[in-house]
């Protein structure tokens, strides 16, 4: 099946359209079934994926607007493969654990459309198609936050939409300029990313374009000064919204850096290492501290999520295989862990309709299963060895150590601060005597919640102990990208900075 990518993109969309016909009572079962099929399709993609091939696979190319250089161009490599699988997995698990009953049919249909845009972003190899899915993903999210969110939901959803929309319009101008440059150099209009990779641009062009793309991606990540929309969005979004937002939508930003900024503007990227590293470290430490100051459990996780995105950014700009590979892996681990944490907070919110830590205490004795799973996820978030969180974080820090030991140490404090605030959450909510009467009768996880969370726990442990099957394809593609960036770089400094991996196997693997 060579066109599996198209199937992956449009299957949820068609299912969403057909979903209008499905009866309200059966909508949930319909959604879960569709998401499960989509997940199985993405697994099939993984099995038919050739791990030894570092380039684009399953490429589909159909010209759409040849006069303007826009074509329907899809492909997948080691970097995007696992993000796609994670996106389909988190959609499936999010739907399974969903406790919303009001307007459930609309929610299912919206989620299916959202799934289309998420998969679309990660498989698009044409900048306009990428932009199309990128922008389209805002609409379902706007609806999810705005229709099922908390009291400030309209403000939060509109803020989310406008922030991202404004940033991506600047990015669009960057794309148009890049296409224009491509046209004036080659005489052909093309928006294909792989064509753009071939462009060798002067450094000042690279810097401007890097800036334009930076706006689009940094707001999505969100990088430090642009992060203010995220706590609102998380604070107001329903559980499923937060899960998808943290797990997949934020990854679009970091993925954009890996797919666009680095290979297209290698010299500018090298020049921007220090500024971005500084912003990332501010992001890591500052938001970790802010997280510590929160009273609301969900806000703690929201801010910790920003903090971890800082680690991912740092790794991307390490310019070596460990850093970038670790970042991509960290994207997956962050998606699974923070998604799971948001689901766990959702569980307690469903029971008590509050997320304030002061309301809880001693939950471990009332809800033992819940406490165990929460504990595992929390450890993974902190980066405990043998969990999924450790692998990515370690590789990123290892990679960035080659760039700047001091900054790496600063970034490493995130593990300590992270441990402090996460354990505080755990202490306040789960340990000690049950002080609040209302907590004494809380039910432990029911079957639905348990079975949504168990797979995530298994993945956390599995990839923490044996990450090789995932790391290897990522590593291959990252190394190919670095070699290519090194060849393409104009300045000598950039060439020195971009480390091409010497050995081809077993590097970056945690022993």
């Amino acid at each position, binding site marked *: 099946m060579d066109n599996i990518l198209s199937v992956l993109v449009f299957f949820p969309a068609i299912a969403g359209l057909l979903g209008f016909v499905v009866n309200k009572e059966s909508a949930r079962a319909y959604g879960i079934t569709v998401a499960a099929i989509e997940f199985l399709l993405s697994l099939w993609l993984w099995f038919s994926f050739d791990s030894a091939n570092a380039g684009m696979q399953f490429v589909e190319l159909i010209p759409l607007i040849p006069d303007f250089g826009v074509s329907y161009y899809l492909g997948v490599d080691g970097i995007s493969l696992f993000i796609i699988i994670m996106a389909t997995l988190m959609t499936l698990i999010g739907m399974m654990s969903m406790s919303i009953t009001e307007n459930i049919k609309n929610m299912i249909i919206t989620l299916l459309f959202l799934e289309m845009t998420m998969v679309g972003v990660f498989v698009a190899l044409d900048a306009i198609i990428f932009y*199309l899915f990128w922008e*389209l993903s805002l609409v379902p999210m706007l*609806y999810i936050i*705005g229709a099922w969110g908390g009291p400030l939901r*309209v403000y939060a959803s509109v803020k989310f939409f406008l922030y991202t929309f404004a940033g991506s319009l600047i990015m669009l101008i960057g794309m148009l300029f890049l296409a224009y440059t491509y046209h004036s150099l080659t005489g052909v209009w093309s928006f294909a990313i792989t064509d753009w990779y071939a462009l060798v641009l002067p450094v000042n062009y690279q810097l401007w374009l890097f800036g334009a793309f930076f706006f689009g991606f940094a707001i999505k990540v969100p990088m430090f000064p642009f992060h203010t929309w995220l706590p609102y969005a998380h604070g107001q979004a329903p559980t499923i919204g937060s899960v998808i937002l943290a797990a997949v939508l934020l990854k679009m930003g970091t993925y954009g850096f890996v797919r666009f900024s680095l290979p297209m503007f290698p010299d500018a990227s090298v020049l921007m290492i220090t500024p971005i590293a500084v912003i990332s470290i501010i992001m890591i430490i500052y938001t970790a501290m802010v997280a510590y100051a929160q009273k609301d459990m969900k806000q703690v996780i929201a801010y910790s999520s920003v903090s971890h995105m800082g680690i991912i950014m740092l790794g991307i700009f390490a310019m070596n295989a460990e850093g970038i590979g670790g970042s991509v892996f960290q994207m997956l681990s962050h998606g699974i862990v923070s998604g799971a944490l948001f689901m766990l907070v959702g569980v307690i919110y469903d029971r008590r309709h509050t997320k304030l830590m002061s309301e809880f205490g001693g939950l471990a004795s009332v809800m033992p299963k819940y406490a165990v799973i929460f504990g595992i996820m929390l450890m993974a978030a902190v980066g405990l060895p043998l969990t999924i969180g450790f692998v990515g974080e370690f590789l990123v820090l290892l990679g960035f150590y080659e760039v700047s030991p001091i900054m790496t140490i600063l970034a490493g404090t995130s593990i300590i601060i992270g441990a402090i605030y996460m354990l505080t959450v755990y202490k306040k909510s789960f340990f000690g005597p049950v002080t609040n009467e209302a907590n004494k009768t809380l039910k432990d996880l029911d079957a639905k919640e348990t079975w949504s969370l168990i797979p995530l726990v298994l993945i956390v442990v599995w990839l923490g102990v044996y990450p090789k099957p995932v790391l290897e394809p990522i590593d291959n593609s990252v190394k190919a990208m670095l070699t290519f960036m090194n060849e393409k770089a104009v300045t000598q400094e950039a060439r020195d900075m971009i480390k091409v991996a010497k050995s081809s196997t077993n590097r970056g693997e945690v022993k």
Partner: protein
Amino acid sequence: MLQPINVSLESLNLVTLAPMLIAIAGGLIILVLDLINEKLDKTLYVMLTILMLVIDFGAVLGLNVNERGFFDVMLIDGISIISQLLIIVGSMIFIPLALTSKRFHEYSYPEFFALFLFMIGGFQFMVASDNLILIFVGLETASLSLYTLIALHNRSNSYEAAVKYFTMGALAAGFFAMGSAVLYGLTGSIELYKVAEVLATRLNETGLMIAIFGSSVLLLVAFAFKLSLFPFHTWAPDVYEGASAPLAGYMSVIPKVAAFVVSIRIFGMYIDLGVEWVRMIILALAVITMTLANIMALVQEDVKRMLAYSSISHAGFIMAALALDTTEGTTAIFLYYALFMFTNLGAFAMLWISRHKNRRFDARYDHPYEKFAGFIKIMPTGAVIMGLFMLSLAGVPPFSIFWGKIYVMQAAVNSGYIWLAIVMGLNSAVAAYYYLKLIVYMFLKDPVKDVDTIYYNLSKPLMAVIGLATVATITAIFYVQPLISYLYYMISASGY
């Protein structure tokens, strides 16, 4: 003694006049029918109008590119053909909206349809000539018909709108006449191609620049009125509000296409002559128009007024493409309007189906935002369609206007105006807010009161029109390519 003038019929090339004459003849037929039997129903007139437009469409398609006719005053070049096609297609989408099941004053008069066809004839004359007098005649025929069409809506604010539009239009006509007079004084000709030739030779004469400056300013003012550019845009929201919703949507597209064609001919000539500050002024006007109209649209409480300001902002957007004066820029103008036409007419038609005889929500406005609160719960399909139109207007891909937008922005980037592309991008981001506001009302709020009859004016023909607009909005990605290549071919064939 006057010499007899010998003119052969072939040299007149009368076929160039055929499209306009068909429209005008159609109008006359409608009037005659009314004279014979005055009890005829409006459905007959609507269908007759559509049929006349079909013939008109065929006649335009049959024209050869780059021909002159009728004492060389008619100019059938690429842009005159594509703009006539646009005008006719837009009119064909508009006129079935008259088939509402409710009785509205204007549609009970056959004159409405006759005037409508005369107006189209006027627009066609306007775009198919480079003779300043014929342009003027076309402009006035179309405008005078349009004023009456607005007034026929028969409410106090539609009279206000018609009178306001008439006064402003008369002022603009005055400016146009004065500008043309200065050009005639400078060159002794009213044919634009001759004007350009003479001006090119006299450009270096001392003291002439001030006269050229004067003529361009007068003409710019005239067209800034017609295109509702800052600071001559103030009439537009009131007029749109006073006119019936479909007519307002129509006014935001078709007359502007015609005015843009004339602007391309006139200001393109100035820019080609190297009068660089005409470009500067147009750019400045365009930027101010899109920004200011966006800011004004943010604070509107009525959806129709918001759409009016949004249309002004879109006009500013397109005006910027005119200043580029490249083939791509000119293609962008037509592409944008071709795509904008469906979405904007669709959005206004959605207002039309929610039009009630009484103002049930607000004493001041027909379509306050509150009216659409919880629209998703009252009429899910309608809400989704309106949401699509709003997203398209905001420039969210893959809906139609996105493609127009990136084409305009690409044209700006290609001409080296990157700052302009950035201004356009930022403006689109601002604009997203007010389109989003309607989406928020429709999807995220609860209905204000039991508003079971928000779709009061719904009927099958209206649904068909809206359905067509929706399909055109969603499937834009599939027809943009043939559209661009056709437009580009026609425009480059006529030398712009």
